[in-house]
């Protein structure tokens, strides 16, 4: 049920309720009158959409190109059209022994998941939509429009099959235009005049005279390898062995195309209809099955085969050109020795990032900033190329510590002169006598930055201190000296 203008209405009904005469769009009170024991649940379109999305992911076992049909035929909008999925099976049908066999498998598999489904297969999305919803019934859950037979198939269908709004359908009905065939015979001018472009647009889309772009959930990968098992498998060794075979095949495909993978998706289709996806990235294109297998090794540890895995697929989601000769980063041509080194290093980065997480394996780049904590930016080492940057800074810049505390620590300081260096400080309950001090180096806040920690709002006066043992510290006093308030001192780093 769903709340619409004018009260609570039925959004969708299961077959048992429909048998009792309950139809979508009916007010809840009427439905209750028909069948007092009716069990009702609030409609949850968002959850429906999420479930559909999961289903679309699971359907990638048939084709990598899947999408959720966003036209959600809510009952109140007139007639339950059910939810839909788009599957582009171009080039996939032969894997299943033809289009009919594929659809049979698809419907059968969905039935196994307790999902009653109808399917229409046609040259255009519009026609497939029409066929799936208006040309099928329980005895024939799918229908295929062979190429060239679109008009015949569509002519007999109601105009609602054109994905039109209820008001438009009603208007057509008043003119006696009930079948798509009636529309096909009409001159186009008056139709456009009366209903705007929408009817003609849908008609053209269904007949393939107008394009209808639909975006897949994920861009279909250019290279896919899949492996179906007669019996679901579950042992980790079997999964690993399957992965090896897929990698071999995929890498051969990549080699033929002169490409290398930057991102690989390994998808496990479980017997219960759920899927599991593991992704690895590489810092430079690769088609070395051994290297790629190593990247997956740690990723597969947590893979749960559930009731067994029926199909596994390996897709190169992102690829780059990779020539035998020129394998430099970002198109540089590198000397062979250097290149071997870089390839090894790139592989190392891949393995480290795979296990420790890409954000824990970084290269640091200098940033033009006066604030010490902003002067370096960690960049994920995957994707970071070798650059040459200026780390030393200006010739006369005061030295910087080898360790910088992520969060400066508040310390107690005794300074003989209010705006002079400390003579003694306490940190972690220990007292440090300052033997030597150097400073201050005034670092002003970067007023042009509005975001950031509040600690960066004040001027800081940095001092280098050396204690009696020779250890060197970097401390700062926050803010300008004010007679009414003792200054706050922070320990920010350690010198070697």
């Amino acid at each position: 049920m769903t709340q619409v203008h004018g009260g609570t209405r039925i959004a969708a009904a299961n077959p048992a309720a429909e048998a009792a005469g309950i139809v979508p769009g009916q007010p809840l009170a009427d439905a209750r009158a028909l069948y007092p024991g009716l069990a009702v649940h609030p409609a949850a379109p968002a959850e429906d959409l999420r479930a559909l999305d999961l289903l679309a992911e699971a359907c990638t076992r048939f084709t990598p190109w899947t999408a959720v049909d966003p036209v959600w035929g809510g009952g109140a909008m007139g007639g339950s059209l059910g939810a839909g999925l788009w599957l582009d099976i171009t080039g996939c049908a032969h894997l299943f022994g033809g289009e009919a066999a594929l659809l049979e498998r698809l419907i059968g598999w969905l039935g196994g998941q307790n999902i009653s489904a109808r399917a229409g297969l046609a040259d255009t999305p519009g026609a497939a939509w029409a066929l799936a919803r208006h040309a099928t019934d329980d005895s024939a859950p799918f229908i295929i429009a062979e190429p060239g037979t679109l008009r015949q198939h569509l002519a007999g269908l109601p105009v609602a099959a054109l994905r039109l709004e209820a008001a438009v359908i009603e208007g057509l009905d008043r003119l006696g235009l009930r079948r798509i065939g009636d529309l096909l015979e009409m001159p186009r001018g008056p139709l456009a005049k009366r209903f705007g472009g929408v009817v003609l647009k849908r008609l053209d889309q269904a007949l393939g005279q107008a394009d209808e772009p639909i975006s897949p959930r994920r861009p279909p990968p250019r290279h896919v390898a899949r492996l179906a098992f007669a019996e679901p498998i579950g042992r980790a060794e079997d999964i690993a062995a399957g992965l090896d075979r897929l990698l071999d095949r995929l890498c051969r495909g990549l080699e033929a195309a002169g490409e290398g993978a930057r991102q690989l998706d390994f998808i496990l289709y479980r017997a219960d209809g759920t899927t599991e996806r593991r992704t690895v990235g590489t810092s430079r294109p690769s088609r070395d099955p051994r290297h790629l297998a190593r990247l997956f090794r740690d990723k597969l540890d947590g893979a749960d085969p559930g009731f067994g895995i029926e199909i596994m697929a390996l897709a190169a989601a992102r690829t780059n050109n990779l020539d035998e000769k020129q394998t430099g980063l970002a198109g540089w041509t590198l000397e062979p020795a250097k290149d071997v080194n870089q390839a090894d290093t790139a592989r190392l980065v891949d393995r480290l990032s795979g296990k420790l997480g890409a954000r824990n394996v970084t290269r640091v780049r200098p940033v033009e900033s006066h604030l010490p904590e902003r002067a370096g930016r960690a960049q994920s080492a995957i994707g970071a190329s070798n650059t040459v940057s200026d780390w030393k800074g200006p010739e006369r810049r005061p030295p910087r510590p080898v360790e910088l505390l992520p969060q400066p620590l508040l310390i107690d300081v005794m300074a003989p002169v209010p705006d002079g260096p400390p003579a003694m400080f306490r940190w972690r309950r220990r007292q440090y006598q300052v033997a030597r001090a150097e400073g201050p180096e005034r670092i002003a806040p970067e007023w042009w930055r509005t975001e950031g920690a509040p600690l960066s709002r004040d001027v800081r006066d940095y001092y280098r201190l050396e204690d009696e043992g020779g250890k060197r510290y970097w401390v700062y006093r926050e803010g300008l000296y004010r007679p009414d308030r003792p200054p706050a001192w922070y320990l920010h780093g350690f010198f070697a």
Partner: protein
Amino acid sequence: MQSQAVQVHQEGPRQAPNSTVLDDLKTQIRTIERGRAAVAAEHVLSLGDETLDRALPWNGLPGHGLHEISGDAAAIGFAAGLMAGFGRIRANGTVLWCQRERALYPQGLAAFGFDPDRMILAHGANDTDILWALEEGLRTPGLIGVVGRINKIPPISARRLQLAAEESGVMCLLLRPGTPHAPAGAALTRWRVTAMPGAPIDGPGFSPPSWNLELQRCRLSEAGNDNRRAASATLGKTRAWPRNWEVEWCDETGGLALAAGLRDRPVEPRPLSDRIH
């Protein structure tokens, strides 16, 4: 060479102990050991001062093994300096630096000639992750070296790191914060670096980083310890092990220099063991 040694040993019981035979044997063993750990000259890093280099059997620090450095920020500076030195020897290459803390500051490392552009920084959640990352790094021939800051290291892991480093020729520096309870036994050398008050200088500013550098252990040279003690005794001097130097970082050479106070002292006689080649 080994078979020769065995032969002599078999003859041993029948003959009276002969000191020259024993000396020959010792020499042979040392040669074998040196042979196993033979390092091409281009893989040995000079620490910047002859006295320091001569204290090591490789006449410098070899880049093919595990070295342990304990200490605080000073140890980080020392490690950065060593890696920078090897970076100059191996013109292209990367340093893998693994630790748990997110406090390493590249600008500060640059002061020791270390190029942060050539560093991959990996943060592990625990010592196990760091050890794994170090080993992966050591199996990557393109690296200059790996640096790992680690609290606890099981002896078997240290051994694995040493073997991996020896095989690939990638240097491994283990940074041990504070005073490690269980030092890595497999390390070729073990150092302790502590800050030391810098020499007084004229005018404002600080002297260069000054450290007390302590060589606590050095493999291969321990075999020569007895010799050395004997030699020292004959010279009427006692030489302590571990060995200590007061050093400061020298920007111009990109290496260490004996601190000013020591520089004027007479050169120490070369230990006997180092003359055997």
